[in-house]
């Protein structure tokens, strides 16, 4: 390893990364210049990619910015920076920008990590992407329902509930789904890139019912407006665009298909001669949706009179309390930050000695001790097979 990697690296990209890190650390160009005993103009040139760095300067700057050298010395990503994608995605003020930008950056880092793990393991995520649906000039509700029916058919989901939506999106379709902590009013971030494919970040702090709704919402963006990045949050629009209205209509048809819901509603109604709040709670739990979403859906289908939700709310309905009294457990879900395939790629890369333990911890976003705990759990989860046999091709005699 005789050549100096800094002689061959993309200087413009390195300069950009250094500039981002400096700004994050709150240092000025003059402060950074002092760190390497140079003039401010030298930092300007470095950040523009016009001046080559010495290893010593890179080490000093990384330390001053509180970052690892490995954050800067890496192959140039082939993906389009998320910052560019999202710049025009929605209007935001400075305060909003400050809240959401770190989350978008983390989302981007995780997506890139995912791609890197796939390359290390030579195991790209299997994609089962449909053609983008053409929704031009179609009435919104009809378009949303017809796409929902077509997708259920394509994925073999019938007309029943979808118990593990996240797993279906990740494993049956090949969308990268991360659960990240976001401020409460944000529900989902959606992005698409030729290399990464469809990617979503869902607000971890929401209830699973709401997260499922956000995932279905994001899935419609993937199905109908694939290349349009979206940051979805409450109160975003003065006038809601059609693409957003379609995405908002889709989850109810996808998660609660008309035929299945009608049949189950009728079964309950026939059995009891009425449709009670207990029936409502049981049905919502069965479909993995919120009570409010189900009531609105039943109102739309004219199975409940309009205004039912408002009346329930006015009576002071306490949803969580009733769910507990009825013994309805939290719906089945996997609330890990990282997709399951990502975690398995990381542990396999570690086991096969393709990445170091420190890099494994970085991929998981935890310290070394926590990384070892997760590695142990993942090893147990991967079936308790002997290490060698885990990589056997069972189709080979």
């Amino acid at each position, binding site marked *: 390893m005789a050549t100096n*990697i800094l002689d061959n690296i993309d200087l413009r990209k390195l300069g950009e990364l250094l500039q981002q890190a400096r700004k994050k650390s709150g240092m000025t160009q003059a402060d950074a210049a002092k760190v390497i005993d140079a003039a401010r103009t030298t930092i300007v040139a470095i950040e523009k990619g016009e001046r080559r760095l010495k290893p010593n300067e890179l080490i000093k700057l990384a330390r001053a910015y509180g970052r690892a*050298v490995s954050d800067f*010395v890496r192959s140039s990503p082939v993906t389009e920076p998320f910052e560019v994608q999202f710049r025009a995605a929605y209007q935001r003020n400075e305060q909003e920008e400050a809240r959401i930008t770190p989350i978008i950056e983390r989302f981007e880092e995780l997506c890139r990590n995912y791609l890197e793990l796939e390359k290390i393991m030579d195991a790209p995520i299997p994609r089962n992407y449909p053609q983008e649906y053409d929704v031009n000039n179609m009435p919104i509700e009809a378009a949303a329902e017809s796409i929902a029916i077509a997708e259920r058919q394509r994925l073999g989901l019938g007309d029943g509930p979808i118990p593990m939506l996240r797993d279906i999106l990740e494993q049956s379709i090949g969308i990268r789904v991360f659960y990240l902590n976001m401020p409460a009013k944000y529900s989902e971030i959606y992005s698409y890139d030729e290399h990464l494919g469809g990617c979503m970040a869902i607000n971890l702090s929401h209830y699973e019912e709401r997260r499922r709704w956000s995932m279905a919402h994001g899935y419609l963006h993937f199905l109908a407006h694939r290349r349009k990045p979206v940051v979805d949050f409450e109160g975003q629009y003065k006038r809601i665009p059609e693409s957003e209205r379609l995405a908002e209509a889709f989850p109810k048809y996808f998660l609660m298909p008309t035929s299945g819901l009608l049949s189950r509603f009728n079964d309950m109604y026939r059995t009891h001669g009425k449709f009670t709040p207990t029936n409502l709670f049981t049905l919502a739990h069965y479909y993995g949706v919120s009570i409010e979403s189900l009531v609105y859906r039943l109102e739309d289908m004219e199975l409940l009179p309009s205004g039912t939700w408002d009346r329930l709310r006015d009576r002071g309905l306490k949803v969580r309390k009733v769910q507990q009294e009825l013994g309805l457990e939290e719906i089945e879900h996997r609330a890990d930050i990282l997709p399951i395939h990502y975690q398995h790629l990381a542990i396999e890369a570690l086991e096969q000695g393709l990445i*170091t333990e420190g*890099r494994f911890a970085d991929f998981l976003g935890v310290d070394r*001790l926590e990384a070892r705990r997760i590695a142990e759990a993942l090893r147990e989860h991967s079936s308790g097979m002997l290490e060698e046999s885990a990589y056997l091709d069972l189709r080979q005699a």
Partner: protein
Amino acid sequence: MEIKHSHIVLDACCVLNFCASGHLIEIIQSIPAQVVVTEVVRERELLTLQRLADESNEDTNQFEAAMGKGLLAVTDFNSESEEETFVNYVFELRDDGESATCAIAVHREWAIATDDKKAISFFQREAPNLQIISTLAIVRHWSETANVSSATLRSVLTAIRTRGRYIPHRNHPLLGWWEDMMR
């Protein structure tokens, strides 16, 4: 355990294991070479080691205590060529700690203590002349030279297993010894 070099650089895996053992100082004292850790590893792992100490209700962090007593020396790059090698290794390993450990060991011809599979294969390729020693080899050496009772040894290995969450790889040359001691 013979060490053919004047110094041995501990990587982050070994530091964590020895701290988890609760006997870092005694173990280091038994090593027949000056024990060193890189500044990069110290800086990056300090918080983890403090968490480990807190979880174990230790009054003082053993790692800092060992440094304070001069048993564990902290070293940083001292030449441009070391720094250049470090940056080159980072590009390949994507791990600052292992890269610093290896760069310094290569330039100064020091031994390396590590259990990291990727790091071991990298070190063997980059510096086949350097001795690579594992956590278990060092613990076994300590137990032999200090006449540690089998009960104490078992509790040390159990602490490394449970607090440090370290399990030797199934091809580890000392796996049989570890299993015997843990029985």
